[in-house]
């Protein structure tokens, strides 16, 4: 079973939109891992180990939005609440949600298109998906920066 696997260089394969999205899905996944890691380390630096319960730490790790810890925490003795709602975490949350929504809705389109043959429907759904991506990112960023 010594099969030889051939890989084409990027120049031979060509770099079109499909390849770009293929790469984007992989790289945005890595970016979300990085965001989650920064969120986890940041929360621990803000004192999560003694001030926040495990469920809220996980919530914060997946999305560093101040509501995730300030509203829900059962220990509820966070000394410095401003630090959890700072500009840095708003930017981190917005970055995370932008990657997550574009990664997620692209994936949703990939799954749906696997079971669709009609070209027109596919094209319409792509436009709807693109609009939905921008709308969801805008809504999420609005939620972050206003409450």
């Amino acid at each position: 079973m010594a099969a030889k696997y051939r890989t084409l260089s990027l120049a031979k394969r060509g770099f079109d939109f499909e390849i770009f999205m293929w790469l984007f899905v992989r790289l945005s996944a890595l970016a979300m891992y990085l965001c989650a890691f920064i969120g986890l380390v940041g929360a621990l630096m803000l004192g999560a180990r003694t001030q926040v319960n495990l469920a809220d730490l996980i919530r914060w790790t997946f999305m560093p939005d101040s509501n995730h810890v300030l509203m829900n925490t059962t220990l509820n003795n966070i000394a410095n609440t401003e630090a959890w709602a700072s500009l840095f975490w708003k930017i981190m949350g917005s970055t995370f949600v932008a990657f997550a929504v574009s990664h997620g809705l692209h994936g949703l389109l990939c799954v749906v298109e696997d079971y669709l043959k009609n070209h027109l429907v596919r094209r319409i759904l792509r436009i709807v998906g693109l609009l939905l991506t921008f709308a969801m990112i805008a809504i999420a960023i609005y939620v972050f920066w206003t409450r």
Partner: protein
Amino acid sequence: MGLKRNVSLKDALRYQGKGPMLTFILHRIGGLGIVTFVGMHILASFLGGDFGSFVNNIYEHWAFQIVIFFCALFHAINGLRIVILDLWPKLIEHQREAIWIEWAVFLPIYGMAVLVIVRTALGG
């Protein structure tokens, strides 16, 4: 672009791809679960009010958390495997082993999480 897909959904479900196919299907189901969860959650916190708290109460239910944690954790770990194999194509030779490692990482973490969720649901 002549896209021809003559495989129906029914045929696809009957396809017996064993381990790799299972991760593929679970990755899709998990991804769809996360899209639904995150989308509804963002909308709920945007709209607020009765609808918002209704949706958020569903999220905090232990049964829902067991399902969504499966989706998120499996999608994350399987996604990492795909990223590693895709960005370092030579590793594709070890793809079977990669799936075993993936389950070895996933099952303990998920098992512990389910234990914590159920214990909390039963009253700590």
